[in-house]
């Protein structure tokens, strides 16, 4: 049973790739391997002045939720370095409570 995860507030993910590179550097991944990867959703014009333009972080099988860091009381490195501060790490229960607080979020159970 999963207990921990990451809550993504994708309304604010700027697509800066910091999470990707932080994860790669922490885990020694080559540039084509990712624990977390950003998918660009847009841009397209919905209607009038409104545009769809979002970035959605996705987690791969190589994500170990930064076990080596979290056991030392550190944050996962993607969460630590996220420039938009839109990633939160915690127990699924705590994050589920945050999930209800605003739309355009996604909760990922990871371990």
């Amino acid at each position, binding site marked *: 049973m999963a207990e921990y995860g990451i809550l993504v507030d994708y309304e*604010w993910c700027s697509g*800066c790739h910091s999470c990707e590179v932080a994860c790669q550097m922490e885990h020694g991944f080559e540039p084509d391997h990712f624990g977390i990867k950003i998918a660009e959703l847009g*841009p397209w014009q919905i209607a009038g002045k409104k545009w769809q333009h979002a970035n959605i972080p996705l987690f791969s099988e190589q994500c170990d939720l930064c076990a080596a860091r979290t056991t030392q009381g550190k944050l996962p490195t993607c969460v630590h*370095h996220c*420039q938009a501060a839109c990633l939160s790490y915690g127990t699924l229960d705590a994050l589920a409570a945050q999930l209800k607080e605003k739309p355009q979020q996604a909760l990922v159970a990871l371990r």
Partner: protein
Amino acid sequence: MTEKREYVLIEHEKPWTYEEDGLKVARGSAWTGPGCHIGCGVLLYTDENGRLVKVEGDPENPFNEGRLCIRCLALPEVTHSTKRLTYPMKRDKALRGKNQFERISWDEALDTIEAKLKEIAEQYGPESVLFMQGTGRDIAAWISRLAWSYGSPNYGFPLSGLACYLPRVSGMYSTTGSFWVCDCSQQFPDRYDNPEYQDPEVMILWGNNPLISNSDGFFGHWVVDLMRRGMKTIVCDPRMTWLGARAEIVLPVRPGTDAALALGMLNVIIGEDLYDHEFVELWCYGFDELAERAKEYPVDKVAEICWVDADRIRTAARLFANAERACVQWGVAVDMTREALPAGQAISALTQITGNIDRPGGMIIPPELIFYGGGFGADLLTPEQTNKRLGMNQYPLLKFGFATFQPDVALRAMETGDPYEIRGLWLQTTNTIACMGADPKRWLAAAKKADFIVCTDLFMTPTIMALADYVLPAATYPERDGLRIGDGPQRGETINKVVQVGECKSDMEINLELGRRLNPEAWPWQDVKEMFTSMIAETGYDFDGLRAVAPAYPRYIYRKHEKGLLRRDGSPGFNTATGRIELWATVYANAGLDPLPYFEEPEPGPGSTPELLDEYPLVLTTGARNWGMFHSEHRNIPRLRSLRPDPLIEVHPDAAEKFGLKDGDWVWVENQLDRAKRRVKLWPALLDARFCSTDHAWWFPEADPEKLYEVFDLNINNNVTWTPGKSGFGSNYKCMLVKLSKVEEGETHD
């Protein structure tokens, strides 16, 4: 928080350097080579072999609060790249352009350079050596002192019209006596929680995408912080960016017409009586004249010039003026129009007549630890040498406290020997023919005329390959000690050396060692640490003391003009001739320039040369940043290159169809001057099908060195001329008319 002297400090859990799991950790500031100017707080991890193995954002540092962009995250792969220059080299002048460098010792390099520079000074005068830098890899202070202590007044950068940052900086100093930035609480160690701080209600993002560019001391994601806290934004950008999609209003301004847009907004704000009467009355000079000028820019006319819907301009002006607290975060697009000074003046006036001056959530004066703008050691020059600075006669504004030569005049001197021959070039941290030089083949031909050329950089570059007689290897920031001074609010911070790569030396070490040989009195310090300590003497810290407590924040006080804190005589007001913010600028009038803001069509352009539109129907803007690259850096770092393997031009699908192009096609981007290669990226988010946008400073480090890494195939500045604004500031780097055509198989530029 505790206080020491007049600085506000943060509590640190650990000393500046400590052990963690067998690694050594050092806290410090990220400034620079590689990467940007802003100086994020970093933790540098080194292993027992003295290698940098990891960089993390320092969560204790209020500036970035632990966050980092990918350039600092990937730093170990830059510092330890096998492609670094790691020892001095020489090459016979006759072999310039050939990949035939020879390794030499530092002693030989410095001995020869010293002798040669002394010989030039004796024979031709020291003014015949130009000292040039690129963008701010902690260099301005040191290279300016090197030039001046040698006796040359000619320090500067090879960018037409000084068209990056300096037009804005000099414009603001000329008209207000200070420099101004958006208040994002960056001057407070407790940031958004500071009791005196209030968020801006509205921020205009003008001519930059700060999330990617992080320029001028501004950490771009503060904008996201503030938006999440409820701030509204107005985005002036020809593209629908991620920020634009979240903005209240987007103004897709035609590149090069920003001044007209600002004047149109002033027209609305003054015409509808939305300005701050009290502030204007008490603190501004020349409001009536500005109002008259703004009348010449009715919104309907401006809408036609800028290709922006008139009602949108009105709504934006009202939203901005009606906000209790508002600010403008602007960027280099303003400088990169030929008449950059009046453009900046008009944009600044928006914040000034609405009273958003030195108050919470408005525009603030970034506090300075030590004054940085004017170089380091101008007093070393005799008045006679100072008067030989290139461009001072043509452009009187350069006399008002600005220390650099005027680059367009310098180029002409290199080409023609007028007013004197240029014999030597000292190029430190500038990859001119790949990055800032306009018409780079013209600049290269002129540079080649010099008898003696020294280059200092981190990596081999097209510029070094084309020109250098001597090459000195410079250090990346984890390889050197330093002071984090620079633009934006200065925080007392240090850069801390944790590794040594090859025989590299830091830029300031190189300048100190050579400076000492050329003029020992001007460089009395044993080593760089002693030099730093003497520079920061007024702070009460020595280098080691500052390093232990850093960051040290100067105490910030709002509304300084009311309190008599801006003028030397201690009276209230601003540090200008009239003591007021000069909407009508005395300094410009004295320099023979129009004292009021105005708009002139960029040339060529749809407004000035409509006859060219049949042949060149697209308006191109250049210099769009991407996440992993800083100007011409990072093309040789595979992890960062993988995010942007090729130079791209964003083309609207309708325009692509017209030219018969599809996504991924290689094209020539061509104007009346020349052409450069790009790959097409179909991009529906261009807000007018006549716009296209591309990134800059491309070369292929993997290509043939003796073809100069294909820089002339790839450099978009092939299409830019050396044509400065009337004041000597500003140049059209970001607005030109182009056409696109498919590159034929195997076709190269020449």
